[in-house]
C-alpha cells in the first residue's frame, strides 16, 4: 500500500500530473507515511527527470511540468514534516529571487523547486527584488547561498549592485552567490564577483552543492 503511494507519486511527477501528485500526497498523509520517505521518493523522480533533461532526452516543458507536479504535492508534505516534527537534514539555506526591474519568474522558480527537492531550505523572495530586500532576507534566514536571476540585459547589472551592497555591509564573505538567467554569462558572473553560474536549472543544483561542498 505504502509503496503503491510512493510509486504513484514518482509516476505522477514523471507524467507531469499535478492533480495526481496532490491527491497522492494527501493520501500519504492520511495513511501516516513517513513524510521524509515521501519527499525522498519525489526527489528521486525529479532527479530522474533532471538527468533525462541533461541527456537531451527530455525538454524544458517536461522539466517545468515535473517541477509543477512536485510543487503541487510539496506544501502538503512540508506541512506534514512540520506537524510530525520529522527532522530532514538540510543541505543549506538558499535565498533566491529575480532582481529589481525584472519580472521573469519561470527559470527562477524552477531552480527553487529543484533546490528544494535536492534538500536545500529555499526562501523564494519572488520577482522584482531590491538589493535591500535580498540583504534583509539573507540576515533573517542566515542564508548560505544567494541565488539571483535576471533575464534582461538591462537588469543584469542589478546583480552587481546586490553584490556590492553585500560587500559594503561586510556580508559578502559569509555567503556563496550564484547567478543565472537569460542575460547572464559565465564571464559576466565572474566580472561581478559571483561564485558561480550555470545556464540550466539542473546544473544550478549541482553548482549549489559544489559551492557549499556537499
Amino acid at each position, binding site marked *: 500500500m505504502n509503496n503503491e503511494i510512493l510509486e504513484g507519486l514518482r509516476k505522477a511527477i514523471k507524467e507531469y500530473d499535478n492533480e495526481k501528485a496532490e491527491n497522492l500526497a494527501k493520501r500519504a498523509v492520511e495513511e501516516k507515511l513517513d513524510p521524509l520517505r515521501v519527499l525522498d521518493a519525489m526527489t528521486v523522480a525529479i532527479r530522474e527527470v533532471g538527468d533525462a533533461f541533461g541527456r*537531451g532526452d527530455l*525538454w*524544458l*516543458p517536461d522539466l517545468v511540468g515535473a517541477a509543477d507536479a512536485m510543487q503541487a504535492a510539496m506544501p502538503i508534505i512540508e506541512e506534514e514534516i512540520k506537524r510530525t516534527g520529522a527532522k530532514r537534514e538540510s543541505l543549506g539555506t538558499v535565498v533566491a529571487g529575480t532582481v529589481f526591474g525584472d*519580472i521573469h519568474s*519561470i*527559470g527562477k522558480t524552477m531552480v527553487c523547486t529543484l533546490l528544494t527537492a535536492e534538500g536545500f531550505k529555499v526562501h523564494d523572495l519572488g520577482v522584482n527584488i531590491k538589493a535591500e530586500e535580498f540583504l534583509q532576507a539573507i540576515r533573517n534566514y542566515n542564508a548560505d547561498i544567494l541565488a539571483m536571476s535576471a533575464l534582461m*540585459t*538591462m537588469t543584469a*547589472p542589478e546583480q552587481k549592485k546586490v553584490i556590492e551592497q553585500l560587500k559594503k555591509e561586510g556580508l559578502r564573505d559569509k555567503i556563496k552567490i550564484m547567478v543565472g538567467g*537569460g542575460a547572464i554569462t559565465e564571464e559576466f558572473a565572474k566580472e561581478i564577483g559571483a561564485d558561480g553560474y550555470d*545556464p*540550466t536549472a539542473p546544473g544550478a543544483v549541482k553548482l549549489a552543492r559544489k559551492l557549499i561542498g556537499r
Partner: protein
Amino acid sequence: MAKGFMRRFPPLKILTDEQVEAIHRGTLDVLQETGVLVYNEKALSVFKKAGCDVDFETKRVKFPPGLVEECLRKCPSSFRVKARNPKDDLLIGQDNVLFFNFPGTDTVDLDTWEPRPPTKKEHIDLIRVLDALPNVHFLNAYPYFGFSGGIPEVMKEIEGVALRIRNSTKVTIAIANNDIDMFTIRMARAAGSEIFANPNTSSPLTCYTDQVNACFLAAEYDLPSMIWDGATSGGTAPASLAGAVVLSNAELMPYIVLLQLLKPGARVAVANLVLPQNMTNGAPAFGEIGVSLHNVAFNQVWREYGVPTVSSSCGPTSSKRIDFQLGYQKMMPTLLSALSGSSILQLYSSIYGEITAHPIQAILDDDIAGMIGRFLEGLEVSDESLAIDLINEVGPIPGHYLGKKHTRKWWKKEQFVPKAADRLTYPEWVKTGKKSCIDYAKERMEEILSTHKVDPPLTRSQEEEIERILKEAREYYRKKGMITDVEWESYKKIIGG
C-alpha cells in the same frame, strides 16, 4: 520619391478567410473575457471612460469587442514619417517595403566570435555604416547598447540617441524604459526629425507603466508609434502558432485602443517579435521555421485590419558567427515576411539574438535586402520585355544577345548585383587572394567609414539643444538615484564634465 521597395504582386496567404476570422474572434474573446493588466492609472481612466470594464484595484481591463474594432478602423493603413532630411522621409504601408536594423547589446570580435562592449568609436562606426547603406531606411533603438567606459545603465540609450542624431539623418526609435523617451523625443525634435514612440507589450497580457506612458507621449508630441510584441511561443505564449497570434494580437490591441482614444487616426505600426522557445535552454529559437509561420499568419491578419506590420524577428539568428546558419536564418524569415505583406523588415546588423551586432553584418544584410527588394518589384510583362521582335531578329545559334541595346538596358533592370558576394570564377578567385563575402564587406566598410558624411550635420544650435537635454537627463536620473555617486565619477570622465 518614397524610399523603399514596392511589392507589385498580391501577398502570400497562409490562412483561409475563415481562419483569419477565427483568430480575430479569439483575440476579441480574450480581450473581453480575461482582458489585460494595465499598470498605469491615467490609462485605466481613459479605458473606463471609453466603456471598458476596469477594476482599479486589480488593474484588470476588459475590452468590449465593438471598441476594439472601432479603434482598429481608425488606424491609418499608410502614413508618412518626417526625417531631418526629406530624402529620409518614410512612407509606411501601401505595399511599400522598408528595412531597418536589429540591435545587439555588444559588438563581436571577428577572430574569436566572442561578444564584447563596443568602444564609442565602434558604436559610431556602426551608426555611420547604417546611415550610408541605401536600403537601411531608418534606425532602430541602440544599434549597440551604450559603449565601454562606464555609462550608467539608464543613460546608455539616451547617449545612444544623441550619437544617432549626430551621425545619421535617418528617423529612429525612442524606447520607453524608465521614462527615457521623455528626453529622447525632445532630442529628435530639436534635430527637426520625428521619432517613433515605442510602447512594448509584456507577455502574457500585461502592460507596464513606462510602456503605456509612451502612448501618452506619442499623443502629446503627435508621433508615429511602433508597438512591439515579443512573446515566446511555448513560454509566454501558447506553443501553437495560431494561439500565439491570438495572444500577441490581444497584447497589441490595448495599445492600439489607447492610441486611437487619445488621438483618433494616430499613426501606428505593429511589430512582431514572437519567437518559438528553444526547449533545450529556454532561449528564443531565432531564425527557426516557426518564426516565419508566425510572421506570415500575423501579416495576413493585420493586413485585414489595415495596420502596417513590422517583421522584427527577421534579424536575429542563433549563430554566433557570420556563417551558413546565419545566412539561412536571416534570409528565410525576411523573404517570407516580405512576400506576405510586411511593411517593414528588421534585418540589418544583428548576429546572435539581441546580443551581438556588427557593421560587417549590416553590409552583408544589404545584399539580402537588395535581393528581396528586387524580387518584390516583380517582373514587367510588356511588348518591350517580351522582346518578341528581338528574339525573331537574333534567331538560332550563332545569334546572341550580348551586344544588343535591349540587353544593355534590361540586364541592369532585371539583375540585382550583390556588392559583397563572391561572384568570381575560380581562376579569378585564386588570383585575387581567395576572398570571401566577409572580406568584401570589410573593404566596403572601410570605404564607407573613410568617405561617408552625414548630410546635413547638426547646426550649432541643434547641437547645443541636444547637449542641454542630455544634461537635464543626467541631473534627472542623479536625483532619482538611478545614477549612483560611484557611477557618476566614471561617467563624468566620458562626458568630460
